[in-house]
């Protein structure tokens, strides 16, 4: 049998490539200077979903909540092979913490039902909370399997998943529909497909069409939308009006998380330490580097 999946993806700042200009003197991040990337574990989640589709058939849709710029991410998903991409975006959603985000996403998912599996990356590299996936499952009343590293089998409504735990793994069985969060080692994301890149490079979200219309008084959003829909190049966009939601639970007002303090940590050089050039000295050094997360 074939299965219908939805992958939750996120565009994140490229925290691995932070240059000097990115940190402001007060320790906050200057987002405009920061390049954005496909959150690595979300990309793996999409790959796992695509591999699942290759094996069993069905469809893969992707869903992201984000601003205009997140449209790039959705095109990337189409380039990799997603059947459809959906943007959830509204000014009312801005400033959301994980609680408000999972609330909006779960409401969007209700609109996109039916589905068999929701995939998500374990966590995003900007917040490192690993909360959005599990919270979304809770809100939808779905079972969840976190830290998945492989889908072993799917038969009817039963799915068998291998998940990583400290010191090893466990194999779980679940009943569909369910939500799976995926770790980085689960798969290697496939490259963009040349034909899809050429075919979908002009696919646009509603926000992008609005921007085009703002820049040119001869263009009207409704007409543009019709035109893009007819060409198969419209990326569906859900706003607050499209969802049955309580606005108070969205965005800043729906986010109890408050940033208490941000500290700009400047690493300074300390005292020297001589490590003896022996086997024991080397092992001690490796242990120290592991402790400091420089290794491993």
């Amino acid at each position, binding site marked *: 049998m074939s299965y219908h999946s939805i992958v939750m993806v996120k565009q994140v700042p490229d925290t691995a490539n932070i240059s000097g200009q990115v940190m402001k003197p007060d320790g906050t991040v200057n987002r405009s200077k920061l390049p954005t990337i496909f959150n690595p574990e979300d990309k793996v989640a999409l790959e796992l979903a695509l591999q699942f589709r290759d094996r069993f058939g069905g469809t893969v849709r992707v869903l992201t909540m984000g601003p205009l710029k997140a449209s790039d991410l959705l095109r990337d998903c189409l380039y990799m092979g997603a059947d459809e991409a959906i943007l959830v975006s509204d000014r009312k959603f801005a400033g959301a913490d994980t609680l408000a985000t999972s609330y909006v996403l779960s409401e969007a998912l209700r609109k996109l039902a039916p589905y068999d599996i929701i995939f998500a990356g374990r966590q995003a590299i900007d917040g490192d909370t690993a909360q959005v996936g599990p919270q979304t499952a809770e809100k939808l009343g779905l079972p969840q399997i976190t830290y998945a590293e492989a889908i072993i089998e799917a038969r009817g409504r039963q799915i068998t998943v291998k998940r990583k735990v400290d010191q090893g793994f466990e194999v779980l069985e679940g009943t569909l529909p369910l939500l799976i969060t995926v770790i980085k080692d689960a798969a290697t994301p496939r*490259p*963009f497909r*040349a034909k899809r*890149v*050429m075919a979908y*490079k002009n696919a646009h979200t509603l926000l992008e069409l609005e921007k085009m219309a703002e820049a040119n008084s001869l263009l009207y959003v409704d007409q543009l939308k019709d035109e893009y829909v007819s060409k198969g190049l419209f990326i569906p966009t859900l706003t607050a009006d499209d969802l049955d939601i309580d606005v108070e639970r969205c965005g800043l007002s729906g986010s109890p998380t408050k940033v208490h303090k941000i500290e700009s940590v400047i690493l300074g050089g300390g005292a020297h330490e001589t490590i003896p050039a022996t086997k024991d000295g080397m092992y001690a050094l490796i242990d120290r580097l592991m402790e400091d997360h420089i290794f491993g």
Partner: protein
Amino acid sequence: MANYFTDNTDLLFHFNRLKLEEVVEIAEHGYTEAKEYDFAPVDYQDALDNYRKVLEIVGDITANSVAPQAAAVDEEGSHFVDGKVQYAKGIQEALGLLTQAELMGFTLPRRYGGLNIPTTLYTMAIEMVSRAEASLMNLFGLQDIAETINKYGTEEQRQEFLPQFASGAATGAMALTEPDAGSDLQAVNMLAYQDADGQWRLKGVKRFITNGNAEIVLVLARSEPGTKDGRGLSLFACYGKDNIVIRRIENKLGIHGSPTCEMQFNDTPAQLIGKRKFGLIKYVMDMMNGARLGVAGQALGISQAAYEEALRYAKAREQFGKSIYKIPVITNMLMDMRVTLESDRSLLYAACHWVDLRNKLEEKADLLKAEGKDSTAENAKLKEATRVAALLTPMAKYVLSENSNRITYDALQIHGGTGYMKEFNAERLTRDARITNIYEGTSQLQIVAATGGVINDIFADDFTAREQKETSGSLARLADELKEMRVLFLDALKYVTDKTDKHFQSIAAKELVEIYSYLYTGWLLMDEAEEDSRKVFIARRYIIGAAAKTRRNWDTIKKDLFADLLHAEDILI
């Protein structure tokens, strides 16, 4: 994320000044393909945008997935177990990625699953692949084989073979060389005969065949019993695997990821491609010209990688209390390498431009003829493009492959003792570069192929027009150098043609072809210098250096350096 397309400013420079309007217009049949295929461009700008995006994919895969495996591929090499050839792990993975990315039918028409992208862009992709891992190019760069079937096969053959290439299900090999037929392909001995049912079959041995383990093999074989020369040879396509015995794979100096096979054909069933007797004189010559451009691209990619290794090492390595990059002798070597690299790129993409133009004009002229329309204008342009492409292809292959050896040599030299060790990439690149001026015709044969165009001075009008153009400032001085070089060229040419000694002419051809390449490349760099002020530096160093080499070549000819050839037996003891 690293990207071999977007991080290479010089490659981008050439991409941004592509003038392929005419080529793309023909290739896209006036942009009507867009009605049928959602990934076909609607106009020239859209096509360029497509090309850029496809090259970005190549740049991503090569930089992030292929390059990190290069040392391991070199170390592991190909395997030959129980009569079967197996690629190195890194090669298998790379082919998997290129297939997933839909890049294995780069130039093929869309109706067979290809991308319908011109040769110039394909060569840019080859350059990036080779920069990452030279031997992968031998698999990725074999798309000319499919191109040959596309051009000369029947519609049935196209439908049978091309989708297999484009989907990545099959790789190709061109089986030309035999133990006694290397540079001299007219001596090919492989027998092709028709059995009682009229089925063509092949019998014999091919040697040194790149990727001889391929699923689809093009074979040059003697179909006309009793003949001895090239006119008795025809071209065949056959399936490999169970139909051909691989006897061994070679243990080579470089390009370890690409298996080089000895193949035995035991009455292997095959299909005739095109017409009988045209195998060598038309189809193989055409296929090899495509492959020569590919090898030039491969040489350039290796040069790029070697230059970068040298630059990075020179900056990091400290001696005498400073980075060796700051020692003038080293800086100067690096600048020579850089200028050679950039001038090579100019020559290669100029050659590609003319090859694309020739291929597409040919297509258009054929189409017009088939429709019973007048093709006089196309034929005139085609004639010129054919002439120019026939000169620039071997010239680019000669110049770029020799320079790749020079650049990798200097890159290793800059590394000093370290470069001689396996830990660094310089030695691998040096070994990989060494094949580029040997296969697909040695440098000596490229000179032979380029000689006609040089002796006929086919760029005479072009050079004259450029000489008459106004230039100012430092470029005017460089233009004077080029004018002087031309005077020396014509003088040397006259001297060589006046002597009716064929042996002397064949030897002096190298000197003449080199001078002609300096002139042509020099003027290309002048154009670039007018567009981009940094390129003035490149043009300056290139042209002043080329002028000195031109004087040396002129001297060699005029002072009869080769007169002692008559005494070869006394000298060669």
